[in-house]
């Protein structure tokens, strides 16, 4: 890159200046704002450095005539130069003095390659490659345009680049007479609420900005620093996201565990401690309840007795009252300050990451209210978890912090890279599983996940897990409450019950999804939806009333999962471990033993707990409080698994000699571990509900700290996914996306119909396509068009008669540009012509024309009308398009937007296409 002194730019510009009336400022400032000269420069680093070449994530392969495919890195500069040479040559423009559109000066330069351009490039050490590339394409291309274009034919440059170059920096523009449209129009490049983003456009913008910085950093030391800052800003941003996510997760964990125990009592000496922390160093802690003398249950405070009927009633009452209070607070805070904070957030994050704008869904009020609300709703004892909302919280942090770095904050496509990393950090802190978090982001939420994002997600998850681990919220050296360490072998035959657990998990999950969907649909379309706070209160009341009598539902769900996962040992005195063996009897060996009455009682209670949790979770998930469903699903599965595990254990105890145990149980050893079954069952239900596979297994083994159980977990997850897919097509997140009608184009589904682009495009037959002509419409015409139609973008064509495509202009940009022009530029009236070309129109006596070439996208993706929809859908998915134009015989025929595609997909699947939420 050092080979390319910036003087080269000056040389080119000055050689342009020979021809044209460019002020001397152009030569003084190497960035004279001239985009073609910039492009010629910019193409060099593209070849020279792999870094800028790597900025091209998506290679556009289309059938358009203008957009050729920048297939490989090596081909990039050729492509650039090719475009410069091929397209910018306008014979009619060569000698024309056009101070306004200076790129034509370069086209003149290109056109006279042998004349003016050559000496300047000879003076330049690295320019020859440009000139040769341009020259190679010179002949054919000039013929092409010359043959087609009349005198005033437009000469399309790569406006995507040109415009955004100006957008990213316009201080270098010092041309005389370039005061009109070269100014930055505020808001260009942003999107409105509930719109999809154009990945291609945003990535092109970022590429342009990047090249500009790469080029500029040779200017001065300060620019070098700025370039360095830009290069590492992605890493710094994810570092900050990781730090903040870890801290917020720590606060939520500590706060939630404290408030959960507030339902039972208080630690008067240090009110901020929960029960376990309160009894931290007390030797007299009772094993049954975990109570100690420092910890005062509410009954103790009011009746000064811990046991007895009266105490029970008072404790029951306080439990319900606290639960209702917390739930009321959560629901009304959500309702008052940030309605977007309700729910789990993962369906919406998925939609947002697929390229949809939901304003302030990831804002700071959402962050605050979701953090506070999830603490409250977990403490209320509702059947929900904080893991899903943690992903949302982390994404909010990612979104807010990305505004510190304009590279990400101002570019929606780039911002999504940070959000992917933030989602990984969210799962990382939720489960203490950094790798699982990265895989979760990759498998479940992200849409566009290049390797660079993978590494950043990895780093972000690592930092977040490290911070949470340092905060040590549970005092167990781990970042989750239900961390268990296992190192017991399993018998090969046990794969059969594991797969059986997978099947049961899949069935429970499908049952849950269907019932929950039915209930959510009912809530959506019935009067129930009008009483969100009342609904929360009623569900909380019922949950609290049912939950308190059963010790397994009374305790925090995380504690329940921990209890179910853990092995029976001396420290575990739950009825679940009431076997006819004695850990406290030092004289007998620990061996497989018959279950005592406590175990049977516990199993019955667990079955009740399973039914209660299943039913309550169905009604809870989707209420207007922050609520996730990882923990309830894990609990459902763990209960099932533990019961199956106990059954297997008793089978092995009673019939130790059957062949299935292959002699391993005959010695009387403890060969079956019910806790392992609980773990496998938890994975199965969670896998069935969310349809995760890889990330789920990794999360589970990171939770248990042993790689020995990967095969059982994999078998269960796979079986559960198969059963789930067979019984119901969608996972819970996809089902909720469909229920809400979010415009999410799922890349998992295949499009298997044989329709053509012509069947889907707008307008349908007998309707006319709203187009804008490139140089014959007035401001009034366009404003009328904007009033009469509601399309989000308009194709620009040569003329009404010759509907040859010139480009595509977005409604929003058009609105902004017109309003901006009316405000800033003098002499713009309703009669002013709006021209999208660079050619100077014939000067008539009318008002001065308004030039809007800058907002025109001259490289819209086009397909022909006979393109199969399969291809079109694939293009929308893989390129992240917002719309594509349909041509026939080279003439513009119609437009296909993402909305059309989504509606078409729904129609083909026999669903109501009108449910798509879209603007």
């Amino acid at each position, binding site marked *: 890159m050092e080979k390319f002194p910036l003087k080269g730019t000056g040389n080119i510009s000055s050689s342009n200046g020979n021809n044209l009336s460019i002020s001397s400022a152009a030569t003084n400032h190497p960035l004279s704002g001239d985009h073609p000269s910039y492009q010629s420069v910019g193409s060099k680093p593209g070849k020279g450095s792999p870094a800028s070449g790597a900025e091209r994530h998506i290679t556009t392969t289309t059938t358009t005539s203008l957009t050729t495919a920048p297939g490989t890195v090596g081909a990039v500069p050729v492509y650039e130069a090719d475009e410069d040479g091929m397209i910018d040559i306008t014979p009619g423009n060569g000698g024309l003095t056009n101070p306004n559109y200076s790129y034509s000066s370069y086209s003149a330069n290109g056109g006279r390659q042998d004349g003016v351009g050559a000496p300047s490039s000879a003076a330049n050490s690295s320019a020859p490659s440009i000139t040769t590339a341009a020259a190679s394409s010179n002949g054919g291309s000039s013929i092409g345009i010359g043959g087609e274009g009349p005198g005033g034919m437009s000469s399309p440059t790569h406006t995507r680049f040109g415009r955004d170059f100006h957008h990213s920096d316009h201080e270098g523009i010092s041309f005389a007479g370039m005061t009109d449209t070269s100014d930055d129009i*505020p*808001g260009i490049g942003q999107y*409105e609420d509930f719109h999809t983003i154009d990945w291609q456009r945003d990535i092109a913008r970022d590429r342009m900005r990047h090249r500009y910085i790469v080029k500029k950093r040779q200017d001065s030391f300060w620019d070098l620093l700025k370039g360095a800052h830009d290069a590492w800003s992605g890493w710094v941003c994810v570092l900050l996201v990781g730090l903040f996510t870890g801290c917020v997760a*720590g*606060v939520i964990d*500590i706060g939630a565990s*404290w408030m959960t125990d507030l339902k039972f009592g208080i630690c008067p000496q*240090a*009110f*901020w*401690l929960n029960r376990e*922390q309160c009894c*931290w*160093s*007390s*030797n007299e802690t009772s094993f049954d309840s975990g109570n100690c003398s420092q910890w005062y249950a509410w009954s103790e405070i009011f009746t000064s007795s811990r046991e007895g009927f009266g105490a029970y009633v008072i404790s029951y009452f306080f439990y319900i009252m606290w639960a209702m209070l917390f739930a009321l*607070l959560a629901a*009304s*805070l959500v*309702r*008052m300050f940030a*309605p*977007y904070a*309700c*729910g789990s957030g993962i369906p*919406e994050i998925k939609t947002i990451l697929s390229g949809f704008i*939901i*304003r*302030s869904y990831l804002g*700071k*009020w959402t962050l*605050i209210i979701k953090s*506070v609300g999830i603490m409250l709703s977990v403490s209320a004892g509702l059947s929900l978890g904080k893991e899903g909302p943690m992903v949302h919280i982390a994404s909010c942090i990612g979104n*807010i912090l990305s*505004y510190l770095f304009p590279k990400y*904050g101002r570019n929606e496509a780039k911002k999504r890279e940070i959000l992917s990393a933030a989602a990984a950090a969210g799962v990382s802190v939720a489960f203490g599983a950094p790798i699982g978090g990265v895989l979760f982001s990759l498998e479940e939420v992200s849409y566009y996940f290049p390797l660079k994002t993978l590494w950043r997600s990895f780093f972000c998850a690592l930092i977040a897990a490290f911070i949470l681990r340092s*905060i*040590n919220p549970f*005092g167990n050296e781990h970042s989750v409450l239900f961390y268990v360490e296992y190192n017991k072998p399993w018998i090969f035959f046990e794969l059969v019950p594991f797969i059986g657990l997978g099947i049961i998990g899949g069935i429970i999950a499908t049952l849950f999804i269907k019932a929950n969907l039915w209930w959510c649909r009912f809530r959506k379309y019935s009067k129930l*939806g*009008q009483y*969100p706070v009342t609904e929360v209160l009623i569900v909380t009341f019922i949950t609290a009333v049912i939950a308190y009598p059963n010790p397994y539902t009374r305790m925090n769900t995380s504690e329940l999962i921990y209890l179910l996962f853990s092995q029976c040992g*001396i*420290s575990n005195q739950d009825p679940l471990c009431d076997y006819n063996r*004695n*850990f*406290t*009897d*030092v*004289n007998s060996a620990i061996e497989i033993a018959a279950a005592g009455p406590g175990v049977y009682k516990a199993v019955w209670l667990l079955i009740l707990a399973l039914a209660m949790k299943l039913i309550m979770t169905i009604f809870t998930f989707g209420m207007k409080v922050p609520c996730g469903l990882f923990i309830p699903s894990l609990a459902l599965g763990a209960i099932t698994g533990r019961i199956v595990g106990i059954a297997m254990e008793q089978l092995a105890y009673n019939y130790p000699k059957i062949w299935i145990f292959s002699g391993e149980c005959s010695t009387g050893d403890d060969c079956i571990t019910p806790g392992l079954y609980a773990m496998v069952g938890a994975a199965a239900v969670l896998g069935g509900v969310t349809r995760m596979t890889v990330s789920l297994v990794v999360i589970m083994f990171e939770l248990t700290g042993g790689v020995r159980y990967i095969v059982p977990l994999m078998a269960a997850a796979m079986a559960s996914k198969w059963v789930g897919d067979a019984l119901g097509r969608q996972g819970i997140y996809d089902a909720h996306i469909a229920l*809400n*009608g979010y415009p999410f184009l799922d890349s998992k589904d295949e499009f298997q119909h044989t329709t053509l682009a012509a069947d889907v495009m707008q307008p349908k037959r007998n309707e006319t396509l709203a187009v804008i002509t490139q140089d014959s419409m007035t401001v009034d015409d366009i404003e009328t068009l*904007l*009033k009469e139609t*509601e399309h989000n973008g308009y194709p620009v064509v040569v003329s009404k008669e010759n509907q040859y495509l010139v480009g595509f202009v977005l409604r929003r940009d058009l*609105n*902004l540009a017109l*309003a901006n022009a009316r*405000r800033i530029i003098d002499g713009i009236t309703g009669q002013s012509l709006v021209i999208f070309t660079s050619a100077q129109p014939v000067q008539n006596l009318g008002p001065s024309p308004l030039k809007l070439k800058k907002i025109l996208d001259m490289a819209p993706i086009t397909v022909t009308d006979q393109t199969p929809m399969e291809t079109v859908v694939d293009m929308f998915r893989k390129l992240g398009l917002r719309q594509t134009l349909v041509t026939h015989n080279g003439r513009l025929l119609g437009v296909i937007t993402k909305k059309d595609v989504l509606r078409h997909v729904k129609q083909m699947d026999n669903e109501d296409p009108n449910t798509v*939420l879209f603007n």
Partner: protein
Amino acid sequence: MNHKLLYSITLVIIFHVATTQSQSYEDKRCKCICPSFKTADNTTQKGTDRMLIIDNVPPNKCNCDGVILPRLVGKIKGKGQEICPRCDCKYENRNTTIIKVVVIIVIWIISLLVIYMLFLMCLDPLLNKRVKANYQEHTNEDVIIASDSISGSPGAGTTASLNSGASSRLFRDTYRNKYSGSFVTTTIAARSSGSDEGSESEVDFLAPSHHRTQAYGDRERDDTAVTVGNGQDMHVRENNVLNRVGHQQDKWKRQVREQRRNIYDRHTMLN
């Protein structure tokens, strides 16, 4: 305003931290659970007792030999080797200071939010009733949006304070009149998304300034919450900064109302 509040919060926290003496709550423990030594004595007795011993020893001493045996010297004769394999010793540590600070912060945040919520529910409508007499009520929503965009758009972040003079005050008060009872779900005549073009093109202006708000004015909006939450400066309207703050607050309120309408009334999202 916000800074003052932040300082006071930090002061209170520091005060709390400083005043609480170190009590019996230590940050490290070695927790051992062992069979009761009685069962080791009598070979026939089946005991269900277990003993819990919590001690403060270094992590490497946290095992049966370091914690249990020294305590049982004399009580058991050479049975240590029988008890010890059954013992379960765990070394744990925690940080009570972090827990304390976090819990106090959480209490603070929740109470601030609740106070502000109560203020918005009860006091705000009352205050607006008084204002109502002074201004005539606008009935057309478009006018409101337009006046807002006029005051908000040309500012583009830097000059917003200049423009948000009279017009925004007028706007805010009219807005307050209309939506004072916004917590009780007000059903607003839904503006059909694209049909009235006049308002939409105006709304376009909101987006960039809104965006800038998000970019730069993050803290300011939090100020809003806090400032008004105190309820002291409501009458000082002449101040330009306050005006802008109020303006932002209104913008935020409008956003929240829009969200509420999407979620609670129309059920288009987050079902």
